[in-house]
C-alpha cells in the first residue's frame, strides 16, 4: 500500500473510483448482472471484430511506406477520431470543474491541490484513451491479423491521441474560463465540445456535397485535388499516419509528443485548476424572473404537456444536448437545397438521414418526458390515471419531434411528394419506436441526469439505435419504391418485440404511480 496523500496513493484512489463507476454503469448498480454484462461484452467484441473485418479488411495490405493518397486517407480518419476524443475530453474536463461530488472534501484537505488535480487531469486522459483503445481495438486487431503485427503500433497512436485530446481539452476549457468566466463556461464548453465532435464530420460532408453531390465524408479525403495539394509524403504532417502503419520511429515520436503535451498541460494547469474549481463553485444561479400572467384553464394532460415544453425551452444545456443532433441535419439540408437547384434526384438520400435523426431525437425527448421527471411524487399523486400521464408525456415528445422535422419534410415535399410522405411517416414511426423503447425501460431520474441516460440501460440504448437504423433503412428503400423495404421493417418490428420481451418486470408500485415506476426504498 502506498503512502497516503502521495501522487500514487491519489492515483490509486482515482483508479478505484473509476473502476467502481464503470462497473456500476455497466451493471446499473446490480452486482448479479456481472455475468450478463460479461456475456454481452464478449458478443459485442465479436460483433465489432466482424464489422471491422468487413470495413477495414481491404486496407490491411497498405504498406509502411504508404503513398501520399494513403497517408491522406489515414490522417483524415485519425483526425475524425481525434475530433470525437477532444469532444469527449472537453465534456470530462467541464464535469471536473462543475460537479461537486468529493471536491469539498478534497479542497478542505491539507493535500496540495496541484497534486490532486494533476492526478485528475491524468485520470481524464486515461479514461479518454481507454475508451478510444476499446473502440479502436477491433479495427486494429483485424488489421494486425490480416496485415501483420506492425499494425499493433496503432494502439500507441490511439493512446497518444487520448493524451493530446486531454491536454488540449484542459487548455481549451481553462481558456474559456478566463475568457467568458465561470458562469457561462459550463454551457459554452458543452456546446463547443459538441461542435468540435461534429464539425469535422460535418465539414467533410459539406465539402463532399458541394464537390461531389454525395454525403460521404470520405469522398473529399480521396479527392485528387486534396492529394495534389497535400504536403509531400516525407512531411512531418503524416507522422501519426506513418506511426499507425507500423513505422516504429514515427510511433516513438508520436508517443513522446503525446506524453510531453499531457505532462506540459498537467504542469501548467494543475496549479490553477483548484482556483477554477472554486470559482465554478462560487457561481450562483442567476435569478431569472418570468413575466407574470393569469392562470389559464387547461386539462391535466395539457398541463403536463405544457410543463414539458416549458422545462425544455428554459434549459439551454438540455436543449444543446438534445438538439445538437440537429447539427448533423445541416449537411442533408444542404444536399436538399443543392439537389433542388440542380434538379438532381439525390434528395432520396435525405430520407434515411431524417428518419435516423428522428429516432435518436425521439428517444432523447421520450427519456426527458417519461423518465426525467423532477417531481415524480407530485405527478403520481395527482388524480389522473397512469395511462393518461404517460400519454400526455408521449404526446409532448412526439409533438416536439413533429415541430423539429416538419420544415425538413415540407421542404422535401417541394422536390418529391413521395419522398416527403415516406420521410414524414418514417420520422413518426422511428420516433414512436424509440419512445416505445424508453417506455419499456423507463426509470426514475432527474432531468439533469440526461447525459447518463444511455448508460442506465444498455439494452434500451442499443435497441433504440438499431431500431432507428432499421427504420431508416426501411424509409430509404421505400423512398426508391422497392418492396424490399418490408425486410428492414420486419427487423425493426422484431427489435421492438425483443424489447417488449426484455422489459423489466413492473416494480411493486401502484398502477397510478407509473411516472415513478421504481419505488425508492422507504426511509421510515
Amino acid at each position, binding site marked *: 500500500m502506498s503512502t497516503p496523500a502521495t501522487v500514487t496513493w491519489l492515483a490509486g484512489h482515482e483508479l478505484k473510483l473509476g473502476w467502481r463507476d464503470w462497473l456500476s454503469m455497466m451493471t446499473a448498480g446490480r452486482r448479479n448482472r456481472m455475468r450478463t454484462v460479461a456475456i454481452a461484452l464478449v458478443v459485442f467484441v465479436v460483433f465489432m471484430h466482424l464489422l471491422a473485418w468487413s470495413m477495414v479488411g481491404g486496407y490491411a495490405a497498405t504498406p509502411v511506406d504508404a503513398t501520399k493518397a494513403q497517408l491522406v486517407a489515414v490522417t483524415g480518419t485519425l483526425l475524425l477520431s481525434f475530433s470525437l476524443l477532444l469532444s469527449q475530453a472537453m465534456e470530462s474536463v467541464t464535469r471536473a470543474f462543475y460537479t461537486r461530488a468529493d471536491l469539498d472534501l478534497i479542497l478542505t484537505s491539507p493535500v496540495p491541490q496541484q497534486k490532486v488535480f494533476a492526478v485528475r487531469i491524468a485520470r481524464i486522459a486515461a479514461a479518454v484513451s481507454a475508451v478510444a483503445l476499446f473502440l479502436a481495438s477491433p479495427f486494429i486487431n483485424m488489421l494486425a491479423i490480416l496485415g501483420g503485427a506492425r499494425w499493433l503500433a496503432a494502439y500507441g497512436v490511439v493512446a497518444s491521441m487520448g493524451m493530446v485530446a486531454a491536454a488540449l481539452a484542459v487548455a481549451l476549457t481553462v481558456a474559456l474560463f478566463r475568457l467568458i468566466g465561470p458562469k457561462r463556461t459550463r454551457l459554452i464548453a458543452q456546446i463547443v465540445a459538441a461542435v468540435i465532435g461534429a464539425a469535422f464530420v460535418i465539414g467533410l460532408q459539406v465539402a463532399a456535397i458541394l464537390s461531389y453531390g454525395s454525403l460521404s465524408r470520405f469522398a473529399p479525403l480521396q479527392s485528387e485535388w486534396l492529394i495534389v495539394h497535400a504536403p509531400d509524403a516525407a512531411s512531418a504532417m503524416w507522422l501519426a499516419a506513418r506511426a499507425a502503419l507500423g513505422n516504429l520511429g514515427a510511433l516513438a515520436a508520436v508517443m513522446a509528443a503525446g506524453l510531453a503535451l499531457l505532462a506540459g498541460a498537467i504542469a501548467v494547469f494543475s496549479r490553477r485548476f483548484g482556483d477554477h474549481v472554486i470559482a465554478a463553485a462560487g457561481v*450562483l*444561479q*442567476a*435569478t*431569472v*424572473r*418570468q*413575466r*407574470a400572467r*393569469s*392562470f*389559464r*384553464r*387547461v*386539462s*391535466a394532460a*395539457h*398541463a*403536463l404537456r*405544457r*410543463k414539458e415544453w*416549458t*422545462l425544455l425551452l*428554459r*434549459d439551454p444545456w438540455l436543449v444543446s444536448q438534445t438538439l445538437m443532433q440537429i447539427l448533423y441535419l445541416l449537411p442533408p439540408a444542404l444536399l436538399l437545397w443543392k439537389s433542388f437547384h440542380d434538379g438532381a434526384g439525390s434528395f432520396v438520400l435525405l430520407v434515411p438521414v431524417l428518419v435516423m435523426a428522428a429516432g435518436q431525437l425521439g428517444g432523447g425527448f421520450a427519456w426527458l418526458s417519461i423518465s426525467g421527471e*423532477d*417531481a*415524480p*411524487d*407530485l*405527478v*403520481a*399523486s*395527482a*388524480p*389522473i*390515471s397512469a395511462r393518461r400521464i404517460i400519454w400526455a408525456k408521449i404526446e409532448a415528445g412526439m409533438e416536439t419531434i413533429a415541430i423539429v422535422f416538419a420544415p425538413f419534410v415540407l421542404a422535401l415535399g417541394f422536390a418529391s411528394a413521395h419522398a416527403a410522405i415516406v420521410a414524414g411517416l418514417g420520422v413518426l414511426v422511428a420516433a414512436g419506436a424509440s419512445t416505445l423503447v424508453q417506455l419499456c425501460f423507463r426509470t426514475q431520474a432527474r432531468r439533469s441526469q440526461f447525459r447518463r441516460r444511455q448508460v442506465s440501460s444498455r439494452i434500451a440504448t442499443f435497441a433504440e439505435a438499431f431500431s432507428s437504423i432499421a427504420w431508416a433503412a426501411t424509409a430509404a428503400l421505400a423512398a426508391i419504391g422497392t418492396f424490399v423495404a418490408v425486410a428492414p421493417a420486419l427487423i425493426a418490428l422484431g427489435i421492438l418485440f425483443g424489447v417488449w420481451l426484455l422489459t423489466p418486470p413492473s416494480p*411493486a*408500485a*401502484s*398502477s*397510478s*404511480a407509473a411516472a*415513478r415506476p421504481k*419505488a425508492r*426504498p*422507504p*426511509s*421510515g
Partner: protein
Amino acid sequence: MQRPVALEVRALSKRFDRPAVDTLDLTVFGGEFYALVGPNGAGKTTTLRMVTGLLRPDAGSIRIEGVDALADPIAAKQITAWLSDEPMIYDKLTPYEYLEFVAGLWRIDAATAEARARELIGWLGLEPNAHERCEGFSRGMKQKVALAGALVHDPKLIILDEPLTGLDAGSARTVKNVLAGRVAAGGTVIMTTHILEVAERMADRIGIIAHGRLIAEGTLDELHHKTGRTAASLEDTFLTLVEAPVAAE
C-alpha cells in the same frame, strides 16, 4: 356523536426484502392533526406512500374520507395531498407557474386556483420570489413552494413526510403555522416526524410505529399513562415504547 373518519387503514401490509408494514390498522379522524413517529425504517414512509397511491400494498384496505383508495385511486387522490421530505419541484418554473401546473393536474378552476395561489404565496412569504425560477431557491423556500403546491387544490387530507427536515427556525415556524391553520379550518393533517417536540406540541394524537406495526396510539397523556410515567416527556415515553418490543424479541 361519532367523529367523521378521514383515513381508515386496515390490515395494511407491505413486504420488501423483509416486512416493512405488517398488518397495520390506523384510524385518523377528520379535523385532526395526527403525528406518526417511529425509529428509522419503522415503516412510516412506506405506510404513507401506500395511502397516497405511490406504492401498492400487498394486502389490506385504505379508505380516505370514505373513498376506497385502492378501488378508486383517482377519487381518493382528488382529496389528498402528499408532501415528501425532499422538496420535489421544477427548478425552471416559478412558484406561480408551479402552482398553476398543480392546479391543472387537480383540475381546479383557473380563477379559484389563482386566488388561492396568491393567498398561499402571501402566507408563506414568497411574494418577492413569486415570479422567479426556483433554481436559485434555498431548501426552505423550495419546501414552502412544495407546501403551497400541496395546499393549492384545497385537499381534505394532507400527508407530510418529515416536512421540517433541513428547515431553518423561521421556515419551520411558517410551515407549522400553515398546518395549524389547516387543522383549525377543519382539514386533516397526518405528519411523520423525528422531532418529537413538534409532535408533542402540535399533534392531537400521536401514533408510534415500530417494525411495521402501530405499537401505541393516543393523546400525549394517554401515551404517558401507557408507560406509567405521567410526568415524562414524549421522548422518554417514545423510547420506552419503542425499546419494549425490541427487548421482547
